[in-house]
């Protein structure tokens, strides 16, 4: 569907699909990324179209490599796109902070999807600062249609200035669906060739990097000129608005609706900017001069707000403005915004009263919700091998008895922090950081540190960023255990393949990189365990805990229960033997449901006994081992 050459037809596309479609309409040949929400569907969508449109799409080992793969295509005269979340941009930043100096050949677009409100992230970070830091052009789509059109145009801009172009999305753009009118898909064959007669792509070639930096500043002035005429900037409202809202990205719809709900179309104007770095100075000046009050609406940091203030201070008119926004406290300084945040800010500034619904309804609903509704906490799925791995880790550390600790990483298994993973994890930072911290903790023994250290990482994370830290630990002979929670895919972001799986992004077979062989080649002791065999995994961990003084690796292996369930029927039919479960008289105090906490295993309030929820149970059969009365029974499915 995304590959349909059906110009002028309208489709309901998710922002990420629209971005992918824009890239296809721009005639890309290569797309590369490492998955990360809310950006994952961009490359996922392109992967679906790869065979039909004869483009190359890959899930790279990490974001830096992904951007390098995309840049390579650009150097060889093929348009390319890379996409990542804000944390991914940090990984790719070292390359990007040199690429901006060398420039590119064919259009290269980097899409970054930020996550205001940290809905699926460990941090809240505004990627737009990178555009300013690196002097690269920035575009921010505000609608699904614009997500497509802007991405397509970004390739033209990239070629016009021979440099990379950044497109910044946010969750509510990437994950919102809307009407998108398609454009034409280009035809014509692509020919890749690296021109060896041109100057090298290197900032230290012939002259100093400073010369390249200088040129970059000149280029940016040119971009500013181009932005003055951009159709991605528009204004709605009266000629001389009492209040001028300047907004970008997700702020456009919220601002428009807020003005509409408050019936202030006659007195409030909205200047919507799609080109947010460098700013189109003359255009902004024109609208600023028509008002005295400015409200800036944007997500995460006061990026646009600060740049607008800076720009206004430079304007020759000598005029001053009252700016409202994050700095004035009218918009929250962090977290996600929504239409109500904008309504409230406007109502306060123009001094009108707004109630969304009667005060009595508001109070009534608050009370009813408070009394009856509780949050649905995050938990491992039924049959998740991470639950059983953390169970084994918990038991092994308890048996060891020296206050051992677990260092976490990024993936579903970050939930090892919470009760669903028995609150084992003590640190979580960036991809691979658990391993790096383990490498350091394992070396402070000379200061009296004698607690066992276990770092956990997923299989995809292992390839992404753990390997260098592991090598560091081998080199320093640090004392710890690395547990690789190998569930055969990048589960958290939608089961994307990685170098350890036998298939690539476009479904072709690829030779899997073997984690244990790789560790063995590094000279580190490696043990493999079945995550569902809790007793054996625990014993292997206990043995490894005693084998001190060097790095050791345990691979706790089991395919993600969700992936497995798509293909095969459950391993077991699990049931509670009601004669053996003696309920609250047992003395275990509901051990199975209270501690093991598998959603397939529930406490029946009426019978006061454990019960299997057949609609949820994945049939892994592991819970059979945790009941002291052997009341949980399993029967192998044929």
């Amino acid at each position, binding site marked *: 569907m995304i590959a349909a050459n059906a110009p002028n037809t*309208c*489709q*309901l596309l998710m922002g990420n699909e629209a971005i992918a479609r824009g890239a296809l309409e721009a005639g890309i040949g290569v797309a590369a990324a490492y998955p990360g929400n809310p950006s994952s569907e961009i490359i996922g969508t392109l992967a679906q179209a790869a065979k039909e449109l004869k483009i190359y799409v890959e899930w790279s080992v990490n974001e830096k490599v992904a951007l390098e793969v995309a840049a390579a295509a650009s150097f060889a005269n093929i348009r390319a796109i890379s996409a990542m979340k804000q944390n991914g941009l940090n990984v790719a930043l070292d390359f990007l902070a040199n690429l901006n100096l060398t420039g590119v050949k064919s259009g290269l677009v980097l899409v970054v999807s930020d996550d205001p409100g940290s*809905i*699926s992230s460990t941090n809240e970070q505004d990627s737009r600062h990178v555009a300013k830091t690196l002097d690269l052009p920035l575009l921010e789509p505000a609608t*699904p*249609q614009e997500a497509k059109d802007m991405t397509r145009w970004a390739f033209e801009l990239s070629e016009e200035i021979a440099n990379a172009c950044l497109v910044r999305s946010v969750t*509510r753009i990437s*994950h*919102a*669906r*809307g*009407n998108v009118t398609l454009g034409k898909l280009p035809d014509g064959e692509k020919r890749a060739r690296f021109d060896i007669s041109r100057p090298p792509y290197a900032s230290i070639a012939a002259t100093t990097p400073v010369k390249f930096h200088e040129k970059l500043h000149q280029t940016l002035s040119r971009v500013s000129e181009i932005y003055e005429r951009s159709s991605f900037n528009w204004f709605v409202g009266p000629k001389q608005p009492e209040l001028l809202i300047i907004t970008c990205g*997700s702020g*456009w*719809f*919220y601002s*428009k*609706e807020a003005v509409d*709900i408050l019936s202030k179309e006659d007195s409030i104007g909205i200047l919507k900017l799609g080109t947010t770095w460098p700013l189109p100075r003359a255009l902004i000046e024109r609208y600023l001069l028509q008002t005295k009050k400015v409200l800036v609406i944007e997500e995460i940091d006061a990026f646009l707000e600060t740049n607008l203030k800076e720009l206004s201070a430079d304007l020759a008119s000598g005029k001053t403005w009252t700016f409202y926004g994050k700095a004035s406290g009218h918009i929250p300084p962090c977290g996600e915004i*929504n*239409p*109500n945040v904008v*309504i409230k800010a406007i109502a306060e500034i123009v001094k009108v009263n707004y109630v*969304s*619904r*009667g005060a009595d*309804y508001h109070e*009534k*609903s*608050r009370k*009813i*919700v408070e*009394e*009856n*509704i*509780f*949050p*649905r*906490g*995050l*938990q491992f*799925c*039924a049959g998740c091998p991470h639950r059983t791995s953390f169970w084994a880790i918990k038991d092994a550390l308890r048996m060891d008895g020296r206050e051992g600790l677990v260092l976490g990483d990024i993936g*579903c298994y970050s939930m090892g922090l919470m009760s*669903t993973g028995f609150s084992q994890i003590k640190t979580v930072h960036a991809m691979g950081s658990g391993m790096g911290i383990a490498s350091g903790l394992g070396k402070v023994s000379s200061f009296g540190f004698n607690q066992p250290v276990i770092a956990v990482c997923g299989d995809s994370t292992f390839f992404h960023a753990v390997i260098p830290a592991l090598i560091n630990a081998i080199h320093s002979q640090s004392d710890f255990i690395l547990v690789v929670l190998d569930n055969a895919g990048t*589960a*958290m972001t939608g089961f994307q393949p990685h170098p350890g799986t036998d298939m690539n992004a476009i479904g072709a077979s690829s030779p899997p990189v073997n984690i244990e062989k790789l560790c063995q080649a590094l000279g580190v002791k490696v043990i493999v365990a079945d995550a569902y065999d809790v007793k054996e995994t625990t014993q292997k961990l206990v043995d490894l805990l005693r084998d001190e003084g060097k790095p050791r690796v345990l691979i706790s292996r089991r395919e993600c229960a*969700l992936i497995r369930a798509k293909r095969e029927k459950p391993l077991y039919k699990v049931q509670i033997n009601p004669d053996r479960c003696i309920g609250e008289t047992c003395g275990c105090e*509901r051990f199975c*449901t*209270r501690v093991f*906490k598998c*959603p397939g*295993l*529930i*406490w029946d*309030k009426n019978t006061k006994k454990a019960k299997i*929820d057949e*609609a949820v149970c994945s049939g892994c059969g592991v819970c059979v081992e945790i009941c002291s009365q052997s009341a949980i029974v399993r029967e192998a499915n044929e």
Partner: protein
Amino acid sequence: MSDHGRDPLNLIITGVGGQGNILISKLLGEVMLEAGYWVTIGETYGASQRGGSVASHVRVSKRTQYGPLIPEGQAGLILGLEPVESLRMLGTYGSPETDVITNIRPVYPMAVAIGEAEYPSLETIKEGIRKLSHEAWYLDASEIAIGLGAPLLANMVMAGALIGSRLIPVEEEKFKGKLKMNFEKDRLSLNLRAFSLGVSAMREQRKTFQSERSRKTTARKK
């Protein structure tokens, strides 16, 4: 635009991760887009694959494209695949004008499943919904789906109920056509049956409701 003539039509389809509300909001959205509407769907979900609250904000208009989040108190209609989730959405997006169609089968949150918290009784939930809504309709969609041998089809039953309610501008046949394009033959017939059972269950309720209402009106006139 609909029986209620609301523009934009602000519909929330809510439930728990894994219940399939994102799929039905997408299919409904596509049908309405093909019928010439501006459609926006904002999907709100957290990091959880399963078990977390998931809501789709579906916004439909003849005039313009709306943003992906419905403002507080502006939901016209809530379709709930899980009763407490319907109540949760009313708490933020409801008003005395909001209609509710909800499945009555609970999906227990972890605290309830492990015996540490009590799930509110159906009577309590209904009482809460009654206080916070305009009209409310209750279906045991999960029971209907289990009757078909596939509890996961509760989402299709609820899609049927929604279309059967005639509160949104989607024709039954158009939605069936959409299902035919989206499902392989082996799964299609079951999905179609679940959908049709939802449509008829809702029609039945509306008939009873209307006859009760006309009885009341007649009684008042006397």
